């Protein structure tokens, strides 16, 4: 079984984020792995470990995949310490300004040539917050879509997979044959801490760097030229102003209720 795990580099959430000319200013924020993607990595490793392990001499290979700036190599190196076997970084200046469909097309091009059986994503990136890439990827490569999983079970003999999809409305059990695109929700598992041994081993693992030409994509169909949406303007929202602040001296409940009534909220 070949498992690809899509992970995204995002700015550290503690840092103040800013847009410069409609593009995230990544220069001043320290990049980290999108936190939900750690659950995707853990799930991929668990699936492989349950079915004969992964790496040389085993039937499985777990590959981390990311599209991002060259600095994402450091993020991939760190993520490899969780235990995946290798990583691929798609990086190309022409990819700057990609919108979501463009990102999905690029990831799809790589997945298609890789002979993968399963692709595992997170459900949402903390910077874009779109929750669209996994569904787009599935549509683009024409694979089964098994998204918003909070439980996954793989049957290697029948090459089928069943997930429990969790949404606001319902819990659905969905099954499909390989190959499939999966996305996992936070809390599907408990991501492990990399051991010292794994951190050392990660230093020797391969991170292949690919560009658009290698993937057979041309610059007009992806990146800012291929994007179907454009940012016209971006402004910091006016900061929220603190309003009244009172101490509770036993009657503040009434003051609050009056305040809410006056604003016609209740």
């Amino acid at each position, binding site marked *: 079984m070949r498992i690809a795990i899509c992970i995204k580099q995002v700015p550290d959430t503690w840092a103040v984020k800013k847009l410069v000319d409609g593009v995230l200013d990544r220069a001043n924020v320290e990049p980290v792995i999108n936190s939900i993607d750690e659950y995707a990595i853990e799930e991929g490793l668990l699936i492989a470990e349950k079915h004969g392990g992964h790496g040389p001499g085993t039937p499985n290979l777990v590959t981390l995949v990311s599209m991002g700036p060259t600095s994402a190599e450091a993020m991939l190196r760190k993520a490899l310490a969780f235990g995946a076997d290798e990583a691929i970084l798609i990086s190309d200046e022409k990819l700057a300004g990609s919108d979501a469909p463009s990102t999905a097309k690029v990831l799809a091009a790589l997945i298609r040539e890789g002979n993968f059986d399963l692709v595992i994503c997170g459900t949402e990136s*903390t910077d874009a917050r779109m929750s669209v890439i996994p569904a787009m990827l599935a549509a683009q490569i024409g694979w089964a879509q098994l998204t918003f999983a909070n439980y996954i079970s793989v049957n290697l003999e029948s090459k089928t997979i069943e997930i429990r999809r969790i949404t606001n409305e319902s819990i659905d059990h969905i099954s499909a044959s390989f190959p499939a695109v999966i996305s996992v929700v936070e809390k599907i598992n408990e991501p492990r801490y990399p051991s010292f041994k794994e951190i050392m081993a990660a230093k020797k693992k391969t991170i292949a760097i690919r560009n658009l030409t290698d993937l057979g994509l041309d610059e007009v169909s992806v990146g800012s030229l291929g994007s179907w949406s454009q*940012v016209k303007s971006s402004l910091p929202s006016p900061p929220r102003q603190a309003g009244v602040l009172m101490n509770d001296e036993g009657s503040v409940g009434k003051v609050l209720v009056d305040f809410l009534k006056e604003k016609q909220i209740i």
Partner: protein
Amino acid sequence: MKEILVFVEATDGKLTKATHELVTHAGGIGSVTALICATSESANELAQQITQGKVTNIHLITSNDFADYSVPAYAEAVAQEMNKRKPIAILFTSSILGKEIAARLAIITHSGIITDASGVDPELNITQSIFGGSETVISQISTESAIITLRPNSITPDLTRAIPSISSESFRASDENKLAKVVASEPVAKANRPELSGARIVVSGGRGTDGNFTPLEEIADLLGGAVGASRAATDAGWYPHSFQVGQTGKTVSPDLYIALGISGAIQHRAGMQTSKTIVAVNNDPEASIFEIADFGIVGDLFSVLEQVKKELTP
């Protein structure tokens, strides 16, 4: 006038409030066609419920495949309609279902997509509030049709009476969209409270509750609101993860957000700071939640809730 489509969503057989908001947004832009994708029985029932807003046409796409194959089947049906009608835009609710259908639709129809918008003007300038409300972005879509998902609570619903015409067709999903089958489905057990992301009032508790959410639930019920929680509270197992508000939880934008025993970490704010009015109760006067609260109370949350309860119970 150009046509604009609205994808109708329902829960438990009822049209959602967010769908009504979509119709309101769409009414300011073009001639509105509401698309209902469901079994023929429920499609007809839902059509009866579209009574308000500027809706010109209701189009029913009936099929059993939606229940069996979900997102890919919906997306295929909607794509067929988009290709036929070439609308200037199609609007979805920013729910999991809405966003995933929108996502596939973008790929199938080669259309630009903007998610989680708070508004669209007649020139299709799309407003989004990003990075947890710290930045306001205006975007445009350059393809023939625009796909836009809108956050709940972003507009006051239009109450004018709708007098739409109704049309319908049946649909069958093609094999390439039947790769994943829904083998069983159970509704999420719901408290008798509104759904968190769309609720008009949210009462949220954090570590300061020490696990006692009962007084919060009482106030939520008195106000007809939903209950939310910080990650500290969900991590402690005091409230289910699906009620977490914040960067790795739900984004809410209610008319009123009441934060009780929540310090106001940036990851929590990311999910609630676009709320119209914020009330915070915290016994630490330095808590950073007060920086964004319209009404802050320094005190014990249980004492304040008790007082509020007295005021609200006749």
